[in-house]
């Protein structure tokens, strides 16, 4: 499995892919799956299925808050696989985004096998650098799964080469130095990072951190192969008056973002 064919198809259409993040288990396991299905209906190409974790050091307040609430309402790691199956059935790519300890505790080989069996495409690992990822790389290669590692504006050319050399699917370029969360502007650092990453790899490069509007998606879509949106989508759910209202707002924002990536290079 891989999201690569999806990214290639988007490239053939002359546009960036839209990648939407939501955590499993918020507002409930079923509610989160419904929300992921709504993303796909609205035009999201790949769903980044978040595993709630007690100590998310790469996440800002919105995703932290959703993770805490999901854990408090009893979400379990195995619920991730149900979400993967649903996203797959809805017709989108299914990548799981997880901090490393839940996978370690579950067992790296077992997690890779169960993820592949559920139809998942691979993992995004925010706190696992390739240098520490020997077990995961072996397991992912065995199961044919994507290994999406992160690069940052601070990454040196040596690090960019090292990280992209171990990646599969795409490379996740963090647009700014910082944690997840909407920002007023995405900045020039992202475009520079994408260019520096392209200099060392042929893999697609997708940009995340800070994108929250259709205009930003359009702007980032001009230079990136994919636009990753997280906190802005999660906030539709966490700040909603009711689950129904949240879903409606979510679908509307996802639609706006989907339009954004489609007019990026028009």
């Amino acid at each position, binding site marked *: 499995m891989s999201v690569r064919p999806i990214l290639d198809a988007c490239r053939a259409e002359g546009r960036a892919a839209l990648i939407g993040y939501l955590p499993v288990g918020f507002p409930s396991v079923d509610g989160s799956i419904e929300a992921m299905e709504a993303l796909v209906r609205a035009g999201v190409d790949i769903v980044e299925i978040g595993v709630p974790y007690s100590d998310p*050091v790469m996440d800002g307040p919105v995703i932290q808050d959703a993770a805490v609430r999901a854990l408090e309402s009893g979400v379990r790691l195995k619920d991730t696989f149900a979400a993967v199956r649903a996203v797959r059935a809805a017709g989108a790519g299914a990548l799981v985004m997880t901090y490393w300890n839940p996978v370690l505790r579950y067992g790296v080989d077992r997690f890779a096998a169960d993820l592949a069996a559920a139809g998942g495409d691979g993992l995004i690992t925010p706190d696992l650098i390739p240098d520490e990822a020997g077990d995961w790389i072996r397991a992912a290669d065995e199961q044919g799964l994507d290994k999406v590692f992160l*690069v940052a504006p601070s990454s040196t050319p040596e690090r960019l080469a090292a990280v992209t050399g171990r990646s599969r699917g795409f490379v996740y370029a963090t647009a700014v130095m*910082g944690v997840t969360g909407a920002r007023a502007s995405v900045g020039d650092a992202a475009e520079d990072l994408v260019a520096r990453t392209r200099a060392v790899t042929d893999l697609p490069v997708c940009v995340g951190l800070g994108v929250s509007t259709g205009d930003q998606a359009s702007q980032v879509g001009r230079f990136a192969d994919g636009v990753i949106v997280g906190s802005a989508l999660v906030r539709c759910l966490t700040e909603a008056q009711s689950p129904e209202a949240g879903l409606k707002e979510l679908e509307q924002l996802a639609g706006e973002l989907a339009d954004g990536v489609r007019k990026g290079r028009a």
Partner: protein
Amino acid sequence: MSPSMPHAEPVGRFGRFGGRYVPEALIPALEQLEEVWRKAVVDPAFTGELERLHRTYTGRPSIITEVPRFAEHCGGARVLLKREDLNHTGSHKINNVLGQALLTKRMGKTRVIAETGAGQHGVATATAAALLGLECVVYMGKKDTERQALNVARMRLLGAEVVAVEHGSQTLKDAVNEAFRDWVANVATTHYVLGTVTGPHPFPEMVREFHRVIGIEARQQVLDLVGRLPDVVCACVGGGSNAIGIFHRFLDDTAVRLVGLEAGGSGIESGKHAARFSSGIPGVLHGAYTYVLQDEDGQTIESHSVSAGLDYPSVGPEHALLRESGRAEYRPITDDEAMEAFRLLARTEGILPAIESAHALAGAMQLGRELGPEALILVNLSGRGDKDVHTAAEWFGLIDAPGKATPPPATEDEAGTKGMGQQQ
């Protein structure tokens, strides 16, 4: 697979423990830190400056004190305290902080951030920042700002900004999370002065090296005083910096038992403790692979301890190796046992220990009773108890209701308890 991988083997390992489990954004900063640190420790300008600060600012070498009246409660064993509590700022933490603050200047950074539990490391960092003219922000769990209010005020007096962290358990682990988030965003100007021997490489090794002076001094002081090495070295273990600092010089002295005392909280069976080696499982937290209190989904379990400085669900990776190799042993000490040791040291020797260090004293009481009067026990008294006066006064019911004096608690020990050692 890739010829450009900078490290064929994972770096910074203690056996299978340690590593660098952090966002890629921080890797350049960790590599810069390691490079600057390794150059500094062989540069006489750096080592000379650090030594001068130890001597003229911190007050090193710290003394050792023999405590015969307290030792009566330790099976009559001979007990010596390494007095890190007498350091400027009141704990061992200053050893590491001065080193890292000097490195911050060498890296051309102008701002330091730190996490703190009991406030000792935060106070030490605020102190070094004031001394060297650095901007300082300290992250502290909200619960800890309440139980260590005095240290919050101290940090603010020293010019630091104290941020109360209201996420999660509102204790040390959440303060560390918030410090990492700040660091990712501000790494170009900011050094994270991590306060213990965990976190991503090079912190566990670097922080150990800055604290190694404790054991180097203590080993010689014990030899000078007694003419032989101690049978046991006791130290409390939260993240484990004071313990690794005193243990390390004794690692090759295989006859010397190294005993780390963890926070047993309300008891292991209660589930409310911070005894990672009693019920923790290897995993990743805050950048290192080590023992972690975690549930079956890998979610961190909140720790509990009367001592804010030991109230942490993970432990330094080198301790994990020392435990696995059998070179060191680790025991839980309950809140009750620690507070009894706190009270005893105060009453028998006129020394108020930090509640963290009282866990080490309680360990000495256990080991002394097991080993008997021939034993020689060295205890790292890592901090002083001024910051804990309020907690201890509440624990022992010493706070007067308005207009009413409370009599001191009844004690059985002041009259002399020479027989206690024979009870075991």
